[in-house]
């Protein structure tokens, strides 16, 4: 989905940034958004610093959007793990190159 939406917006997404935030995302403000997630979930830096940077570059509404998306996926990830919703084999086959590139196959439990 991220790849498709980036193409739709004519962004030159580097998908490796999702697993390595030091890589430029190619999405406007993208690395700031990754910093926000890391600050919230891994305590990598003071939240006030990344808040100020997002407000300055993307605007206050963007900060609220980012926070709510993070909140939404705190829920969705839990629903996925607790329900055990299976990942269709055809999806894994289709995205095998990407899965290997990002080393996320280890997250598939079912």
């Amino acid at each position: 989905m991220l790849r498709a939406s980036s193409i739709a917006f004519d962004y030159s997404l580097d998908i490796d940034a999702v697993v390595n935030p030091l890589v430029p995302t190619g999405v406007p403000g993208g690395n700031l958004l990754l910093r926000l997630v890391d600050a919230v979930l891994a305590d990598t830096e003071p939240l006030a610093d990344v808040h100020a940077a997002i407000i300055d570059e993307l605007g206050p509404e963007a900060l609220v959007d980012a926070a709510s998306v993070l909140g939404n996926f705190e829920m969705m990830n839990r629903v996925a793990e607790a329900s055990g919703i299976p990942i269709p084999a055809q999806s894994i086959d289709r995205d095998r190159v990407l899965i290997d590139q990002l080393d996320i196959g280890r997250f598939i439990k079912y």
Partner: protein
Amino acid sequence: MFSFAGAPVPVRADLRFIYMAAWGHFARPGATLTGRTRIDVLHAARRHVAEQSAQIIGIGPELGRLADALYRDPISVDGSMVRNAAAVHGDAVVVEVISIISMLSSVDGTHRALAAELEPLPEPEHGDPTGDVATGLKRRRTHIPVPAGAINVMFDLVPMEGAAFQMLFGPQYMTGWEMGFERFGRTPGLNRAQMELVSSRTSIHNECFY
């Protein structure tokens, strides 16, 4: 309610509205648990004491363990934990607990991302559990009985939980209709590619393939 005290920016009314609705949902009797028990489980999960408080709360220790793990350390939740709780206490109460903990994680996650104080949980409403549980569902290589469909129907065994869960998607992320547009964006705010960077990175932290 939902003033997001401490946040550096004002929060959209549609988010505050669904969070108020979620709080009302938590406070009401559920299908298998009273409002008192639901709120006690949520309080305990926030403090990571649901398992040790299970007897006081009035739930089984397996449910307390699941609530603690799901709120604090979702990576540790697996099929055996869920199925074990279901084997002892039944599927419906497991779905109810998973649902309210997942939704609380969502609301609290938004608050944490904004450096806002967590919203105090509501006072429970009186009344007996409703017993409103769907029939005819089955495990479809899942840990809990579900209808055929995507992740949005995972709590449909307990219809009011399923409805509350689905209520949160749109304002927090995108509605089903909005997801049909690859160039969706909030104006002002983030566009879809920016939102999907946040969702992807969040899933990486939670070690969730979804």
